[in-house]
C-alpha cells in the first residue's frame, strides 16, 4: 500500500480523458488499495478519481458515510461508471484535493441513476441522491478531464435557494 501523489491544478494532465478499465486483475486491486489509502490520507475527503493520481483509467472511489443524516451506499469502488439518468438540480459548494485553497459553487443533479462495475468487474447499479449524487458527479467529471472550476457559478449571486431554512421553523 502507498499514498500516491495528487496532481494539482494547473497540471495539464488533469485534463486527460481516462480510458475504460478492461482487466480486473491483481494490478487493479493493488491500485484500488493505494487509491483508497490516498483518499483517506486527506482530511474530510469523500471521494477520489484515478486521474487525480495520474492513473488515467475510469476508476473512482466514493464514500460519504462519514457524513451524518444522509442517504448513502457506503464505500463504493466504481469502475467504468456511467450516469444514465439525472433529475433535479441544486447549488452547493465544492472543493477538491487537486484544486487546493479554493472552493466554489457548482450546480449538480440531485438524483442520478448510476451503472458501473465493481472491483471484480460485476455490473452494479445505484439510485443516488443529494450529497452522494454530488460526490459521484464530481468524481466522474475527473474521468472526462473536468474539474469543478470548469463548472463554477457565481459565488455572490447564487443564494443556495433550495433548502434554506428560516430560523423560526427549525427546532
Amino acid at each position: 500500500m502507498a499514498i500516491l501523489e495528487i496532481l494539482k491544478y494547473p497540471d495539464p494532465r488533469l485534463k486527460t480523458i481516462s480510458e475504460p478499465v478492461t482487466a480486473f486483475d491483481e494490478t487493479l486491486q493493488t491500485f484500488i488499495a493505494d487509491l483508497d489509502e490516498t483518499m483517506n490520507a486527506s482530511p474530510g475527503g469523500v471521494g477520489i478519481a484515478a486521474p487525480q493520481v495520474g492513473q488515467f483509467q475510469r476508476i473512482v472511489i466514493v464514500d460519504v458515510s462519514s457524513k451524518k443524516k444522509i442517504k448513502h451506499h457506503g464505500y463504493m469502488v466504481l469502475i467504468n461508471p456511467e450516469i444514465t439518468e439525472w433529475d433535479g438540480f441544486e447549488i452547493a459548494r465544492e472543493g477538491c484535493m487537486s484544486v487546493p485553497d479554493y472552493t466554489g459553487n457548482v450546480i449538480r443533479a440531485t438524483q442520478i441513476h448510476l451503472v458501473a462495475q465493481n472491483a471484480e468487474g460485476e455490473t452494479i447499479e445505484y439510485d443516488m441522491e443529494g450529497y452522494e449524487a454530488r460526490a459521484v458527479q464530481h468524481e466522474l467529471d475527473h474521468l472526462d478531464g473536468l474539474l469543478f472550476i470548469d463548472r463554477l457559478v457565481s459565488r455572490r449571486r447564487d443564494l443556495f435557494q433550495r433548502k434554506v431554512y428560516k430560523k423560526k421553523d427549525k427546532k
Partner: protein
Amino acid sequence: MSQWFMLTLVGKDQAGIVAQVTTALYEQGCNLGEASMLRIGGNFTMMLMIAFDGQSDALAERLQPLAEKLQLQLHFDPIEGELHHHQQSDVLLMVHGADRAGIVAQVTSKLADAGLNIVDLASDVGGNEDNPFYIMQIEGVATQGIERLEQALQELLQQQPDLKVTMKPIDTMVM
C-alpha cells in the same frame, strides 16, 4: 522578493476602467494578486493586491496621470500579502427588510458577539425611492459554532422583528 501593495481606486463608473488600470499596472511590471472590483451606487470601486519590485513612490506617481484621466481617487499602501490561506466560510446568512439606518450594525454586532468572523459581505439597496429595501448576504466562519449563531439570531429577530434573516451552513464537499 517583491513587496505587496493594496491599490484602491474609486470613481464614477465608466466602461474600460479595469482594462486601462490593469494594462498600466502590467506595463509597469506589476503582478496582480486577489482583487475585488465592484460597481457601488454608480461608482466603480477596485481593491487590488499588487506585487511590485521597484519603488512604491515611483509606481504611484506613474499611476496618478491615469487616475486623473479616469477621475479615480487612488490609495496605495504596502500590505502584508497573504496568499494560499483562504478562510473557508461555514455559514451563509441572508438578511432583508425595509431600509432603515442601523440594520448592518445591529445584525453584525449580534453575530460578532456570537463568534462570526465575516469573510464576505455584499449588501444592496433595492426597491424604489419611496419604498427602499435593504438586502445583505454574509458569508463567514462560525468560530464558536453555528448553534451560538442560531441563538444570537433568535434574539436578534425578537429585538428587530422588521428583519427577515435566514442562515444556512455551507457544507463544503471536499473530493
